[in-house]
């Protein structure tokens, strides 16, 4: 039985009839497949674990170096390095089964067909080990798929609808901030049948080595994350949550409870901790404690009360 109440406060969130017992998750790409953090993060305290993106075939990822530190952030170009859907099913799934948190499979592909094939195979074989799917339409570090789809509203809607037809599980679309108006993409996801949107993925960035006179990342650009993008994410959630009816999951630069509270007040129904997991694996636990304490102090009985109390 999943406990959703902490100190009389109901922190749970329901999406398509399925419960996420608290609003603090660990973001795709920063938590691996969970087991890597054994001994460092108590995954049973998380609301949700969003897996490393899974593609049809294993992918080796991009050339090294893949990470460069930037002021209050990091720029990464991992390139969706992952074990592929078959090994995901055989090697990773048994571990997910042992977890109490909602396990959300993040799905990426170079083509619409690849997304659909990955979802179909997971639907056929993963059973109830997976809580739902997060569709990655926002990774900026691959040449095909992902952000290429995520920057075209019509593509977002088409792909979301096609995946919607293949699953009854909660479907979350992860949006990119690298667009002129993120609300258009959120509306397209909603129109396609998404149950929620995650907002935001990384911002496109570049760091140049002035001595070598070339970008540090071999591919030139990467995705910026970390505290540097916190206000960008909060603004995006504020805008998106007013444009759509479905829940918004806030991501981007959360390192403290106060950061998460900003997202919740701006309109998010849940949050994800990403880059901060690297710096301090106990971040998610601290954020959950801080959010709970704040809500108790304000007299909120449910997480939804945050939205009603934003001036």
């Amino acid at each position, binding site marked *: 039985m999943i406990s959703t109440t902490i100190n009389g406060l109901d922190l749970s969130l329901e999406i398509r009839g399925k419960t996420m017992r608290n609003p603090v998750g660990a973001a795709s790409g*920063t938590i691996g497949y969970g087991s890597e953090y054994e001994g*460092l993060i108590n995954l049973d305290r998380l609301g949700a674990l969003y897996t490393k993106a899974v593609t049809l075939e294993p992918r080796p990822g991009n050339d090294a170096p893949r*990470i460069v530190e930037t002021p209050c952030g990091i720029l990464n170009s991992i390139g969706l390095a992952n074990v592929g859907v078959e090994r995901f099913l055989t090697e990773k799934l048994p571990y997910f089964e042992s977890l109490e948190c909602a396990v959300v499979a993040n799905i990426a592909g170079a083509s619409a067909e690849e997304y659909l094939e990955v979802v179909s195979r997971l639907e056929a074989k993963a059973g109830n080990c997976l809580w739902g799917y997060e569709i990655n339409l926002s990774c900026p570090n691959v040449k095909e798929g992902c952000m290429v789809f995520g920057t075209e509203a019509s593509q977002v809607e088409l792909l979301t609808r096609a995946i919607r037809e293949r699953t009854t599980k909660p479907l979350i679309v992860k949006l990119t901030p690298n667009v002129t108006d993120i609300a258009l993409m959120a509306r397209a996801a909603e129109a396609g049948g998404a149950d929620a949107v995650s907002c935001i993925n990384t911002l496109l960035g570049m760091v140049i080595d002035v001595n070598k006179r070339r970008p540090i990342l071999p591919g030139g650009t990467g995705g910026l994350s970390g*505290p540097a993008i916190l206000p960008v994410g909060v603004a995006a959630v504020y805008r998106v949550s007013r444009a759509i009816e479905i829940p918004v999951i806030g991501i981007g630069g959360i390192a403290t409870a106060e950061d998460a509270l900003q997202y919740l007040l701006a309109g998010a129904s849940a949050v994800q901790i990403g880059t901060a997991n690297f*710096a301090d694996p106990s971040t998610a636990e601290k954020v959950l404690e801080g959010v709970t304490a704040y809500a108790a102090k304000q007299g909120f009985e449910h997480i939804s009360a945050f939205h009603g109390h934003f001036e």
Partner: protein
Amino acid sequence: MKQFRARVRSNRNIAKDYYEMVFDWPESAESPLPGQFISVKSFGTADLILRRPFAISAFETADGFAAIIYQKRGKATSMLAATDPGELVDLVGPLGNSFPLTQELTSLLVGGGVGLGPIVFLGSRLASLRLRPTVVLGFRDASCVPTDYVGALRFEPVVCTDDGSVGFHGTTVDWLRAHAAEGRDPFARTSVYACGPNAMMSVCSDFCERLGLPCWVSMEQIMGCGVGACVGCAIPVNGSERFARVCTEGPVFESRAIQWEQIQ
């Protein structure tokens, strides 16, 4: 592996930009092995968000301490160098794999610059097992040689300097070549362990391959998580997977596994 706050016992400058930090190692944490590392997050500033990996250079169970050797070369290591004894540092460890101990008769340990940390740890461990390793440490010049530190070790290393200002005149690999030329196969049944700049390890790897000696190298790469989750610290290796994570498949690799020509 575990996250813990450790009290700093000492943090001293041992040569030009090199520091040794000694800190408490809790009983509740696993005992680190030579080759393993810790990641440190104690820079007192919000703009540096990544933990920094450092190879362990010493560990004493009885006294409950461990140590790292690091080079002051940027903001984070400058702040680390300013840490006073008694202060707490936030550590995660022990991380990564360790140097495999083989059945070979003798061990040859090669350290370059700040890469001496894990080499010294391995050397001390082998010395305590009475295995008498040959340890060769290379530095740019006399100012980089941690003379007192090296003098206090349980073994007597060969010190090389590029400019000949102290010890053998030349690089560690120059020393290996000179020694190999002495004839009677001085490196028969020897395992080689190296840590230092990539250029040094690459040459060392070539040298070992030519003599048919098994060689292990401890690699470095910018790390995100340090635990195998983010796949950020990948380096190019031979084989179908193409990349390996320094933090979990390494930091110690068989030197032949590395695609040296792809490494900057």
